[in-house]
């Protein structure tokens, strides 16, 4: 059954569809960066509804079709729930900065590694493989829940899913490309990382995923330049870090928008941050966390082998410290910095103790 009009084989030409259109005469012009989403915010096409009643999948600005069925149970239909001021820009940036795990990584630079180092790298790759599944699956669920009127924010999430697919495959490729293989799963997906998927609200999800989770992983990826054993690994981590920084930017900008639009939700957001911070330090969410098996693997890699574990562990402590500092500054940038001054957050104390 369809709402589409049934047309008999022989019929008079009906061009009444030509009289049903959105705003006409749009003349968007490409700028220096091509024709971007920002360039097509022209006339009413750029009008964002504060609350969307679009339940039919109608493209924003298109003429209404009264008989259209409801196709989406769009639970995210209030602007502040998902919006961020630079959504168009982040989307275009993501499109234009894609890379290929097949051809942009100098795989030929991989060389046989000592067993302990290969095992540590493969363990880390197994972990990242696991968490990137979550980082792809979770935004994907929220895309379908979001009204098409907020297409720019949706599109950023769509490209994030692509990014995470690439991260999954690049770590899998690394694990299978140098005489090793995948190791035992870390269990992160059944711990805090997996619990990101239990978020009931988009901002709850974004706070856990983009700010806490991906923020911590961003520091890790950047550190890959230190613990990578060859050019292939260093490149892999460096390129993943760029993508991750974009995802973190989504979280910070969304939280900033929400804080300004709905300050009454401040306490709720602080609760999400409370929850995340406990895991950020000690949980398996954080591969550099004190209780994570992956932190041992990192220490082996940073030291250059089991025999230099202590040296590697010292470098790991520097990573943890940096994670904490960057996390705090991101939360401040998002507008929730008071928690570090009023004693609510345990992070400043832990940061001071890590000196």
């Amino acid at each position: 059954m369809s709402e589409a009009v049934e047309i008999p084989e022989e019929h008079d030409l009906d061009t009444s569809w030509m009289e049903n259109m959105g705003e006409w005469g749009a003349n968007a012009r490409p700028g220096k960066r091509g024709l971007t989403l920002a360039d097509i915010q022209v006339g009413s096409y750029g009008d964002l509804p504060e609350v969307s009643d679009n339940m039919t999948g109608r493209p924003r600005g298109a003429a209404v079709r009264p008989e259209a069925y409801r196709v989406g149970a769009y639970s995210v239909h209030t602007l502040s729930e998902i919006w961020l001021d630079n959504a168009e820009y982040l989307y275009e940036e993501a499109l234009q900065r894609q890379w290929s795990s097949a051809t942009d990584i100098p795989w030929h630079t991989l060389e046989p590694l000592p067993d302990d180092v290969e095992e540590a790298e493969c363990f880390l790759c197994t972990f990242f493989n696991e968490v990137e599944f979550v980082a792809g699956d979770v935004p994907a669920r929220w895309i379908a829940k979001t009204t098409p009127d907020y297409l720019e924010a949706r599109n950023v999430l769509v490209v994030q899913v692509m990014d995470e697919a690439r991260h999954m495959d690049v770590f899998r490729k690394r694990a299978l490309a140098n005489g090793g293989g995948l190791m035992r799963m870390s269990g992160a997906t059944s711990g805090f990382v997996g619990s990101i998927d239990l978020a009931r609200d988009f901002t709850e999800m974004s706070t856990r995923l983009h700010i806490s989770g991906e923020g911590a992983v961003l520091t890790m990826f950047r550190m890959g330049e230190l613990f990578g054993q060859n050019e292939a690994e260093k490149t892999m981590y460096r390129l993943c870090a760029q993508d991750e920084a974009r995802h973190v930017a989504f979280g910070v900008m969304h939280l900033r928008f929400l804080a300004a639009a709905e300050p009454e939700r401040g306490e709720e957001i602080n609760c999400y941050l409370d929850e995340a911070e406990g895991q950020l330090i000690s949980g398996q969410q954080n591969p550099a966390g004190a209780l994570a098996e992956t932190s041992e693997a990192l220490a082996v890699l940073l030291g250059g082998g089991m025999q230099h574990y202590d040296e590697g562990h010292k470098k790991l402590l520097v990573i943890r410290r940096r994670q904490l500092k960057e996390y705090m500054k991101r939360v401040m940038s998002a507008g929730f910095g008071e928690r570090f001054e009023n004693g609510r957050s345990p992070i400043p104390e832990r940061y001071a103790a890590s000196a």
Partner: protein
Amino acid sequence: MAVFPSKEWFEEVREVYNSDRSLHSGGGGACDTTAGFSIGDRRYRIEFAGLECAEVRESNDAELAETDFIIEMPIESWKAMVRDVQENGKASSSQTLNSLDLGLEDGIAHSPVDDQYKQDLFYRYNQNFQDFFNASSRVETTLE
């Protein structure tokens, strides 16, 4: 032969970077940011717009305070990085901007207004900046 650091040197690197897309490596696409370089007592301001480096100019502290982030190192560290690029055709792993940043507790890049969102642009666009400095391998260089 261009002298590092100087406006002429940065201008030559900019021309090389903009004229050959093969120097823009994977993951180094569109980039929109302004950054400052603090090199000893010299200051430079660089602007990336889309796929090109739009401008590099000699600058000052007041102007750098308006940029997204500033990369600051002692002049000897800058010279070591440029020398390494000259010798190897691109930065070796210990001399990439990211490695140099990680080597110091406070890093080499910071936001002049202490905004992590802006500082994160250094991470987001890292490849463009690295490609830019790697392009300097094609510029005959004398270190000041």
